[in-house]
């Protein structure tokens, strides 16, 4: 399947196409090839979101994965986060879910909640 990418290595933003035979066109430098290879083989992203709390002063508190997780798992991570409710005061950096979906990443608070 033909795939198109916008390279984000530099501000030029090349539109790069990977063709069915594996050839790559549209990149103006070789860094574009490296970028596309990573994106094709193992794209990963940090997921940031919020989780519910029981506190009316702060009904939501922000969280993130403490390392990038495979891109295809992003919606599954979101599903796990929707099950979480913070019931006790916690600090920035505290772990909410350990090793989420076996990715090796923890869900941590990105701000303190009622502390």
């Amino acid at each position: 399947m033909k795939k198109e990418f916008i390279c984000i290595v530099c501000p030029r933003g090349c539109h790069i196409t990977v063709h069915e035979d594996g050839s790559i066109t549209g990149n103006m430098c070789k860094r574009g090839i490296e970028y596309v290879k990573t994106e094709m083989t193992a794209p990963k992203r940090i997921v940031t979101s919020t989780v519910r709390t029981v506190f009316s002063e702060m009904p939501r508190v922000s969280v993130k994965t403490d390392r990038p997780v495979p891109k295809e798992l992003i919606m599954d991570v979101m599903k796990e986060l929707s099950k979480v409710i913070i019931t006790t005061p916690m600090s920035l950096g505290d772990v909410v879910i350990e090793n989420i979906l076996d990715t090796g990443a923890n869900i941590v608070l990105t701000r303190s909640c009622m502390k």
Partner: protein
Amino acid sequence: MKRDIIVIGGGAGGLAAAIAAKEENKDVLLIEREDRLGGILNQCIHNGFGLEVFKEEYTGPEYAEKFIEKARHLKIDYLLNTTVISLTKEEDEFILYTSSLAEGIQKYTSKAVIMTTGCYERTRGSIVIPGDRPKGVITAGSAQRYLNIDGYMVGKKVFILGSGDIGLIMARRMHLEGASVLGVAELMPYSNGLTRNIVQCLNDFDIPLYLSHTVTEVVADEKHRLTQITIQQVNERFEPIQGTEKKFDVDTLLLSIGLIPDVTLLDNLPVETDPLTKSVKINQACETSVPGLFIAGNSLQVHDLADNVSKESERAGHHAADYIDMKRTKEKGIPVQAGDHILYVTPQYIDFSWGNAEIICSFRSRKKIEKAALNVTQNGKTLIRKRLNFVVPAEMETFELNIEDIDGIGDIRVDLEVLS
């Protein structure tokens, strides 16, 4: 009690300004209208903050916390839930009236003021969208606040007008929270957001971006709720092209159509305004035409990155401290003019009485230029000439001037030359 410096606004700018001034042992009061410090950073839960200042990537709240911790450590006085409702100057004294539920109306005075009040979003009223006026049309930043701070969704079927960074970030955010995000329309033939956000917010989730498109019809049901929008392609004069209509059934239209510096507090002061930045003119010390009144961050010029807000505001904090320490006779200064292909440039004046202040200039181009040369000249003499590749309006550029190169008379011109 008269303060040395009052900082208005406790976000990315105000925190950095207050810290810088306090580190020079000034008596600083920071005034914030929300119930917590951090400003808009609190609702920017995505990452990408701090790479410039801390060389590490943080989310907005984490980035804010770094500064809040430092402000606490320095024991900076601050007021929360307090809005400055008037700012005037008599003789050498600034007079501020504040309003808060706890304290009612209060008066504060200071020798200097730093404005770090950020910006507000352009709303539907500032552009022309034909059709009904239903519920469900809302600015992207407001939706961001409702979702990330207050915890509720503004809609389930969403379209976004404008490709500013907040719009792109909200496209991803609404998608992650289960909304169906049908597309983003951008009037210009290029995106106004950072490329990184196009890739990670739209492409990652197959959200279409319609360049050279705008919303030409908004339809509501009998309960005045949004039900449908129409987008159309536009020609080079931004006129809708017949036959290119696309209809989307939506309950929410998010607007990400630009930010305007919030300087309404300065209405009663004799500040010189700049129609290009929609803010006020400053010299290289971030000082306005009113001596002792400093301004920085998004209330001075809308930045791409919070890191740059912090850096600029830190400079303003140092300069305000300097102002307290040393009496100087303010000069009007040498004007810095935005020339060819330049949208705006700051500072707008170089003031020789601030000869010790470094001159960091910021500008944006009016259009996308693949290969450009930046020319900074005065009286026909070249101060700076440098090659710039891929200049786009969405990305602010900076350069530094040396005060020793500048003549005491004659405007400085900043031009972008298009190289073939």
